[in-house]
């Protein structure tokens, strides 16, 4: 446990310079995009006169120079204050915390689905490379991987929500239902099935193929040959030795995919009307709300660091060599 904290602290400290670069970079990138938050706002209200535009710009401090605004932002950030969102008219931390649970549920479930089901199917496919089940799974997963997530989302929604009406079309829970506790959790789970499916199935293919490839490679190694010569059952070889060896790169992949899934959730959150990070980021860009976007990036970065830490711990559990040498730190 202590080691985990030590690891976490080191990770956080070492990520500060990267975060700083990302923060300044994001600030400048949004600055380079034409139009500012007031332009976006005035358009959204259907126009206004010049004095109104002027006073809005002054009230948000957008009339100050770029350097002054960046400095102001960085100093308030140093006090752990994420600032005020122009787009939402509320403190950024509030806006982010409100959306965070939805994103964690969506991402966590999708990662669990793609990793869990992907590795199991990968084992099935890799147990007998070249068999019928291997071929069907390989082709199937490739086809799934080629499908864009918004399309899969819409198709799932049309079939299961609109036609069959088994599941709700969108949202994170039944609106104003007054459900509490377990009943509410069940309701949220029902709402998550389709978006998690749409997001998870695409990454599933990735894990499946990696697992299969890793196993095919492990089969060719000497230890596999030795075990077969020793007369161990095929099931035992596959599960205890081959799969365990092939699982290691998958765990690494899990850490990497957590970041890319945050990006993939933009589309899924829009299609299924889930108020999460992806949609928030999109709204921040459209509204030219740099502090909000940076706030999202910082929290996302923390999330990814956390996932990677968990991955490291899992790694040590799976591969005793890693833990012994301390290679992960």
């Amino acid at each position, binding site marked *: 446990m202590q080691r985990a904290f030590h690891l976490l602290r080191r990770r956080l400290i070492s990520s500060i310079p990267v975060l700083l670069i990302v923060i300044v970079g994001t600030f400048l990138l949004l600055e380079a995009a034409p139009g500012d938050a007031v332009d*976006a706002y005035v358009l959204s209200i*259907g*126009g206004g006169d*010049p004095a109104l*535009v002027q006073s809005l710009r002054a009230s948000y401090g957008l009339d100050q120079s770029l350097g002054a605004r960046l400095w102001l932002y960085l100093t308030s950030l140093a006090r752990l204050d994420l600032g005020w969102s122009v787009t*939402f*008219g509320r403190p950024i931390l509030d806006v982010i915390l409100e959306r965070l649970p939805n994103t964690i549920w969506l991402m966590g479930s999708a990662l669990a689905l793609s990793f869990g089901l992907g590795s199991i199917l990968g084992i099935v496919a890799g147990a007998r490379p070249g068999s019928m089940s291997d071929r069907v799974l390989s082709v199937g997963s490739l086809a799934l991987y080629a499908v864009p997530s918004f399309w899969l989302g819409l198709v799932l929604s049309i079939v299961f929500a609109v036609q069959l009406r088994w599941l709700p079309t969108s949202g994170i829970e039944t609106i104003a239902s007054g459900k509490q506790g377990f009943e509410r959790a069940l309701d949220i789970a029902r709402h998550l099935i389709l978006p998690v499916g749409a997001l998870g199935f695409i990454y599933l293919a990735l894990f499946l193929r990696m697992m299969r490839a890793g196993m095919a490679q492990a089969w060719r190694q000497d230890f596999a040959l030795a075990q077969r010569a020793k007369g161990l059952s095929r099931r035992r070889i596959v599960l205890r030795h081959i799969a365990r060896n092939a699982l290691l790169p998958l765990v690494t992949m899990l850490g990497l995919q957590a970041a890319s899934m945050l990006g993939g959730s933009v589309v899924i959150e829009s299609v299924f*009307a889930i108020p999460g990070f992806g949609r928030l980021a999109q709204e921040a860009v459209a509204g030219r709300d740099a502090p909000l976007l940076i706030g999202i990036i910082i929290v996302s970065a923390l999330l990814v660091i956390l996932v990677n830490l968990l991955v490291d711990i899992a790694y040590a559990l799976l591969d005793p060599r890693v833990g012994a040498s301390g290679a992960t730190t």
Partner: protein
Amino acid sequence: MASTAMPSLLMAQEAANGGRLIVASDSEPRNLNPAIVASNGVFFISSKVIEPLAEASFEGENGLEPRLAISWEGSDDGLSATFKLREGVTWHDGTPFTSADVAFSALEVWKPLQNLGRLVFENLEAVETPDDHTAIFKFSKPTPFQLIRNALPVVSSVVARHVFEGEADIAASPANNRLVGTGPFKFTEHRPGEYYRLERNEDYWAEGLPKVDEIIFRVLPDRAAAAGALEADEIQLAAFSQVPLTDLERISKVEGIKVYSKGYEGLTYQLAVDVNHRRKELADRKVRQAIAHAIDKDFVVKTIFLGYAAPSTGIIPKNAPEFYTADVPTYDFDLDKANALLDEAGYAKDANGIRFKLRLLPAPYFTETRQFGDYLRQALSSVGIDATVVNNDSAAHQKAVYTDHDFDLAVAPTVYRNDPAISTTILVKSGTPAGVPFSNQGGYVNPRIDQLIEKANETMDVAERTELFKEFQRLVAEDLPLINVAEWGFITVARDDVRNVSNNPRWAVSNWADIALTP
């Protein structure tokens, strides 16, 4: 003129009471106070909570029916306007509604803060309140009552004085997002990214209204999702064309779903080509006329709007019968004429058949404005003008067109709001500084048009003022500072158990007191 007609909503179709209506909403306005932000996105939700002095009506005198005011009259000199207010109205928190609320709204909110009120109430000096149910607006300069009257549905949302009084900065008040009004529904809850919930106001001033217990505006940013949720009966209504035009053909055949194209007559959007007059070629009237001749308006209406629009003849839409005139120069689709005009103007085709090049910036706000951008590029190339389409997002478009003037042609969806002086004359009047969206940012200057606009602002006689705006249409159509192509309203799609849909010209942004669900 006084108007004491019975609100037509009392005579609306009788239907069973109760039930929850779930409506699709594609945006969550940052400031939900319609007295400050007079925009359709805000009205869509807030108009059920906060009411104007008068609302638009199909049958009412001068196209209005009473809400918080029961009659209105302007003085002949244009220096005052008297409103008789409804009695027995209370705010949602129980406080009685009085003329002090109207005076406060007008002087502290509409005039200094509201995007449209700043213009309409520019010369408002004081509001006298001789008794609790009379408000007399006093103007420092004569102000045409026709304009005030026509603007009422849009600019006169009344907020409670006791809620905002004493606020240092009303525009930034948290009360702007926790609305207290007099309307048929009370603002109950907003879950950001999910929904707004409005509950029935038991003490509403109109007998027997509202009909439904609850209205929920569910946030659905994806248009395809709105159609799906409607089919699955998770929502009962989608307004403002939230179900895309291309889906209408299919969804109109789904059992239990109805498509309405009425109910937007008072919020007509106009598809126009904005012209940058700083560009030498475009400053030539013949070139602008040639471009007008190169556009096949009927094709645009049929193909891009799938028939849910009408071709325009000028800067005021047909849906404004008070002012509209068809007696203006028109520009038929005629490529020969267009080519001849361009030749006459001295821009001959070069070896590649190109006369000159320009940049075309379609507004990104609607699918239709983007599609029309692509069409216009083709239409221009057929007369030898080589246009490059530049696509931007909203903020970038606003900066490029309305602040930096970095465009040659732009496609704009302008809105006609009941009176040309509200948001139409600004499109061609000279002198608006840079940075103002939906204004004359093409740098067009025409002293005759400027004078006409000025004169209309000073004309108190209704018939005379109306005639001036007819002349204004003729001048604009003749000189073409901008090219109006089509005008459209939106489409409402609803389950067929929803009653009293589309029964006034600003239906989607009206109070929905009579909307009902049949079991």
